[in-house]
């Protein structure tokens, strides 16, 4: 398959599966922006450096999911910037860099403690899957455990982290 064929191929899939992708984007909370995101996706797959893609539809859903996350993230950080601007003079003055680092360090220590309490593998599995982006099947092979053990480790980790975060938010 030539690169040009592959590119137009993906765009072709976007056209063919437009309904399914839009439905996903709507369910994902994009509402009236769903068309907008689909347009972004269309442009993105036009300029994607091509390599053979095993499952084009899954590839597009993945790309759509990433676009949603990017949008959410930029909305959140814009809101945060506005909030900081609004609060300027109080928080930024009173929370010097060193102190912020101190809070982050304390939180990190508690995160590591919470993961360590779940067993020797959990932090490693979380890091490999979440930070390194390695597939769960590969991590399972690396560790010599079953795929479902990896998923269970991740469930334990996510559960504990959610509890920890809620605790920090309450403080």
């Amino acid at each position, binding site marked *: 398959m030539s690169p040009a064929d592959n590119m137009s191929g993906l765009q072709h899939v976007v056209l063919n599966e437009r309904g399914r992708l839009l439905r996903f984007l709507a369910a994902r*909370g994009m509402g009236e922006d769903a068309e907008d995101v689909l347009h972004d996706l269309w442009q993105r797959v036009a300029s994607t450096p091509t390599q053979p893609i095993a499952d084009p539809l899954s590839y597009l859903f993945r790309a759509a999911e990433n676009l949603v996350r990017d949008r959410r993230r930029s909305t959140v950080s814009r809101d945060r910037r506005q909030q900081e601007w609004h609060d300027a003079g109080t928080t930024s003055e009173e929370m010097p860099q*060193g102190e912020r680092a101190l*809070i982050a360090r304390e939180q*990190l220590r508690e995160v590591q403690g919470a993961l360590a309490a779940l067993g*020797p*593998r959990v932090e490693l599995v979380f890091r490999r899957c979440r930070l390194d982006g390695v597939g769960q099947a590969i991590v399972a092979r690396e560790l010599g455990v079953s795929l479902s053990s990896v998923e269970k480790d991740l469930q334990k980790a996510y559960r504990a982290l959610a509890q*920890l975060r809620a605790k920090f938010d309450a403080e």
Partner: protein
Amino acid sequence: MTTNAQIPEIKEAARLWAIRVQDPAFADWDGFTEWLEADPAHSPAYEAALDDADWAADLLARAPAPVAEPVAATAPRRPWWLGAGAAAAAAVAAITGWSLLDHDAPAQQVATAPGEHRTIDLADGSQIALNGATRVTIDPDTPRHVVLDQGEVRFAVKHDAANPFVVMTGGTRLLDAGTVFNVVRDGDALEVAVAEGAVIYQPGPGEVRLAPGDTLKRRGGGAAPVLGRADPQTIGSWASGELHYDNAPLEQVARDLTRSLGRPVRTADGAGGLAISGTLRLDGSPDEIVARAGPFLGVRFTRNGEGWTMSPANGAVR
């Protein structure tokens, strides 16, 4: 909508979807769409799950990995992670080994055993005294920031208005505006008492300024702080090897003795609120201290396993 997103089953399901979608091999996009459509609470719950994992991943990304190198996929079935797991546990225990977010020098963790007292001179001339079963984190780069992880510390701070001394404990900030104060962290409960100078609790809107003799108690992370008074002479007196009480509840005596003796000291049923005045010296063995304490405090100590139970000396034994 947002309340449904708080239902534990929905949160758990959302986390599982977050885990599965994250996997590069995930392909069940239609199933995911159907789940999202099934309840308007699902999408926000899924976002929250992503957000929590992102938060932790960001923190972890700044700390060194628990093992040096991920083992290649060619590794045999031998459970090599047993060794790696031990290394990971060691990395957590020896917290001093981790690199700082924005400085080179490692933070130091200092801990005392139950019953042990320890005094530390900080680089800025301040002095902190650790009561038993206490742990603090000190970063040599920022000597005027101390984290109290658990236990009780008496701070004697060299005041510098331009560079305030800050105590962090469980997300709560205490800003020194004076000299001598005592902080107890017991789980999520917090107690602050000021002997000299002033301390600002949670500086910012709604801050509380504590003057000499002021005490602040907070039962848990979300609870409202309760203000009280104490004799400034008695605050943090344990650090000088004596416990002073001026109409203090017996349960406070029990807690102080537990920390200083390293043995559990309880109060008999209904006796925790008994008002105690007097002074107690902390030298000698736990048995000697307890033997002296009884007459001084007007309480009877009864052996209870490793420790003791205190009851009013003139009351019936329970």
